[in-house]
């Protein structure tokens, strides 16, 4: 063995000439390593593959002319983009390569942003300067930012687009879910433009909770909110029996009596007909906001207010009566309007709601009277679990920054993330796992369990991944700001009345309010006062196909006049005068021409009803009573450009001439039916 090695050594390095020759050879090989590495580099392989692909195609000449060899780079210093992705992804701009099966060479799908303006990593993330697949797409030790998985791709959009966009349904859904589930009661989430994501779940105050419900119900509820209502947004804290006992004891103990106290009108009588409650519930359009399970077990109704399937188990009968009579008494901040029911109606509706029970829910809960030690322990638990982050509780301050801030969660370095068994080793994987089952990361963690579908978890993950360093630090010109609600409130006596009726729960006025009902910002220009008072007295059906409709609030004449005066005065567009087109200008010939336009040229009857006896379209409001409802000037301007008067309306702009708009207005203003199908039948 040793002899053999010695002879080899002698052969190469035996004398100075041999040694020189050998060393030169080694040097030459070493020198060749670098160019060889370059020659065999991955991107050259991809470029050869690409050339091979396009040479087999019919439009090879064109494609070859577009091809540029060597490392390609998109450099946009303002956005810190240095992307060499186009070195391998050579067909991104080639329309004819939309159908190739190799993902690397396929044309980029149509998006509103150009490659040269935004680069690749702005939306897709990954390592722009890298020239190997592994480094560009995945995490390596030095470079951590991997590509965003396709299902979270809208997180890329969300870094700049803070507004609700048509093209990003999951991002929108994720942001809504974050608000809806009250995530930001505990976590601060600041957007790039300095605004915050706010919660809109409206957790109830617990200051007077003992007036509303029993300790047994609270016990069962905090043990498992979803056992009471599948739509509950309160998460599950997985409390032990003893902890739930002590928390319920404390919550009841801290509650003070309402001032003035709840009083039930003794002389009120619920209607004897058992169907009366159901029909009052229907007539008052409670289902616009509240869901309730029907006999078939389906949830029917809106999600503005809480589900009412088991309300009789939850709420005390006297509280229900008090609430139905005037919700402001128990909760001045509620979104629920103050219906002006008479005492008998209150009793009827309350007894209907009382009959909606879930008998199994709290039936097996038997609690001994609470001891002082238990109450004290309950208070400790309430503080530890941050209950006051969401709920108002007597004697406990809302904690500040109870949970980690999530403003930059999408850029969190993996080295700062603690992974557990079964969680994919990536940031999206971590965020999704945390939302799905927070306690999997440690039984002592405080974050509770939310009830979300896999798709909702992905949507929330998308919205959180959009919260990156880039989103926070990029130049303001890159950002499309979110539309924030204004702080508008109607003023004066009418303002108080409109606040009492919670008009803004459903209607938007001057940029503040809900999206369930039409924007009323220019309502004073649109409608006639006579019609408005009649409508407030007894709301008729304007859109026959809608389930959600304006309820009857049982207003007094004085209240109706106050609201009508205010609407007619304050809600006027500055663009034109509502009286600028008097009815005397319309001739019978114009009316006839308008009728032709309505039925033939524009086929308005597809969506609107002008005559209840023959028209059937019910997408838009019925127009049979236009002459009594609207001002001619409004109709005239609306026909020319509906979107300017009410942004987002689905009425198409028909691009009609002024003469056409005038004739059509003449025809519509001649429609004087009282406006309901029933009336037409009579």
């Amino acid at each position: 063995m040793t002899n053999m090695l010695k002879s080899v050594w002698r052969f190469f390095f035996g004398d100075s000439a041999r040694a020189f020759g050998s060393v030169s050879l080694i040097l030459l090989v070493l020198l060749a390593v670098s160019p060889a590495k370059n020659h065999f580099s991955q991107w050259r392989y991809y470029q050869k593959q690409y050339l091979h692909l396009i040479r087999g195609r019919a439009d090879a000449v064109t494609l070859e002319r577009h091809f540029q060899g060597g490392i390609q780079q998109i450099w946009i210093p303002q956005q810190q983009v240095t992307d060499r992705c186009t070195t391998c992804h050579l067909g991104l701009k080639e329309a004819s390569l939309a159908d190739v099966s190799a993902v690397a060479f396929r044309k980029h799908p149509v998006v509103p942003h150009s490659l040269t303006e935004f680069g690749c990593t702005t939306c897709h993330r990954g390592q722009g300067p890298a020239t190997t697949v592994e480094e560009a797409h995945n995490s390596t030790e030095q470079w951590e930012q991997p590509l965003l998985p396709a299902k979270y791709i809208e997180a890329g959009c969300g870094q700049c687009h803070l507004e609700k966009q048509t093209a990003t349904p999951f991002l929108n859904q994720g942001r809504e879910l974050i608000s809806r589930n009250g995530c930001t009661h505990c976590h601060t989430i600041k957007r790039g433009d300095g605004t915050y994501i706010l919660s809109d779940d409206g957790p109830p105050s617990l200051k007077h909770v003992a007036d509303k419900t029993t300790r047994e119900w609270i016990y069962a509820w905090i043990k498992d909110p979803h056992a009471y209502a599948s739509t509950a947004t309160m998460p599950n804290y997985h409390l032990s029996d003893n902890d739930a006992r002590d928390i319920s004891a404390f919550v009841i103990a801290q509650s003070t009596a309402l001032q003035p106290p709840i009083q039930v009108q003794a002389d009120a009588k619920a209607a004897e007909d058992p169907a009366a409650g159901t029909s009052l519930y229907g007539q008052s359009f409670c289902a616009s906001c509240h869901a309730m399970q029907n006999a078939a077990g389906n949830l029917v109704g809106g999600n503005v207010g809480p589900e009412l399937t088991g309300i009789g188990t939850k709420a005390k009968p006297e509280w229900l009566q008090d609430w139905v009579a005037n919700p402001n008494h128990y909760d001045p901040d509620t979104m629920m309007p103050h219906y002006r029911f008479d005492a008998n109606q209150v009793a009827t509706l309350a007894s209907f709601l009382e009959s909606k029970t879930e008998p199994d829910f709290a039936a097996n809960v038997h609690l001994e009277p609470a001891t002082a030690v238990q109450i004290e322990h309950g208070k400790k638990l309430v503080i530890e679990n941050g209950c006051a982050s969401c709920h108002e509780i007597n004697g406990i301050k809302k904690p500040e920054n109870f949970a980690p801030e999530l403003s930059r969660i999408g850029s969190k370095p993996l080295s700062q993330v603690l992974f557990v068994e079964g969680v994919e080793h990536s940031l999206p994987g971590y965020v999704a796992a945390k939302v799905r089952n927070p306690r999997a990361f440690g039984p002592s963690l405080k974050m509770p369990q939310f009830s979300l579908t896999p798709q909702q978890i992905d949507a929330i993950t998308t919205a959180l991944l959009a919260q990156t360093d880039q989103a926070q630090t990029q130049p303001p010109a890159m950002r499309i700001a979110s539309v924030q609600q204004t702080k508008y409130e109607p003023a004066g006596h009418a303002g108080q009345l409109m606040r009492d009726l919670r008009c803004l729960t459903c209607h938007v006025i001057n940029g503040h309010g809900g999206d369930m009902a039409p924007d009323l910002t220019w309502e004073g220009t649109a409608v006639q006062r006579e019609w408005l008072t009649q409508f407030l007295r007894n709301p008729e059906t304007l859109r026959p196909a809608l389930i959600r409709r304006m309820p009857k609030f049982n207003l007094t004449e004085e209240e109706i006049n106050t609201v009508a005066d205010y609407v007619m005065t304050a809600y006027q567009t500055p663009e034109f005068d509502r009286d600028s087109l008097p009815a005397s200008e319309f001739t019978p010939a114009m009316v006839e021409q308008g009728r032709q336009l309505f039925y033939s040229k524009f086929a308005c009857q597809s969506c609107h009803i002008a005559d209840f006896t023959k028209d059937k379209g019910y997408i838009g409001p019925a127009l049979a009573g236009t002459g009594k409802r609207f001002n001619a000037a409004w109709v005239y301007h609306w026909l020319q450009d509906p979107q300017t008067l009410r942004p987002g309306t689905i009425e198409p702009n028909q691009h009609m001439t002024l003469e056409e708009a005038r004739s059509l207005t003449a025809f519509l203003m001649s429609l004087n039916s009282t406006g309901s199908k029933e009336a037409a039948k009579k």
Partner: protein
Amino acid sequence: MKRALLATCTLMLLTDGCSHKTKQQPASLQPTAAGTAIVESSGGKQIGYIGMPLDQPVVVQVNGASGSAVAGAAVYFTGPTGVTFTPASALTDSSGQVTSTVSLGQQAGRYKIVASTPDATGKNLQLSLDEIALGYQQTVGAQLNAQYCIRCHDPESTPLRVSNMDNLSVKPHPFTDGDTLNKISDAELIAIISHGGPALNKSAEMPPWGYTLSKSDIAALVSYIRAVADPPYEAGGVVYAQR
């Protein structure tokens, strides 16, 4: 002695390096029965989004010779690159069915997924289902469709959205009506949407949307209509001169 050790080590290293380990197969199924047919129960022809799980799981059923469901038969799901199944294989339950959640790949378009089950002779019975993945442009189209078009163009009613189709004298084509819509060129579709029915001698009940929607919105709608067409739309493509 030393030499022998060295030789063994080298040999071990060599064999280890050269052997190609076969890919880890999922725990193989132990079917207790075999069917004679595999049929779709639900979940075919869904419209989903790239990279996302479909709304409804895919449910297939294995039937025996008498047409009754077979429990305990093995069902395997396969699909094009990027499609994932949870689970990818399973035994049929007591009602003869297997339910799998399907996530589509990263390319917009149609995905043919295949569910297969071996029959008694070991021959594979196959069932293929089409699923549609919407990309960015089609998603925009889908959203616009839901806002502006669906009320007339979709005959289905839901409690929150009553179909207006029956109220129209000329019935609009549902966007899935490939037999009709595939024959209309992109340019013509864009013209009808932009200028309304009368522009192409069709019903005035179709209003012009060109003054309400942008050009890119209308292009997105067309791409959505093409994506959901049934039978599928096949683009003619550009014809280039041969070299």
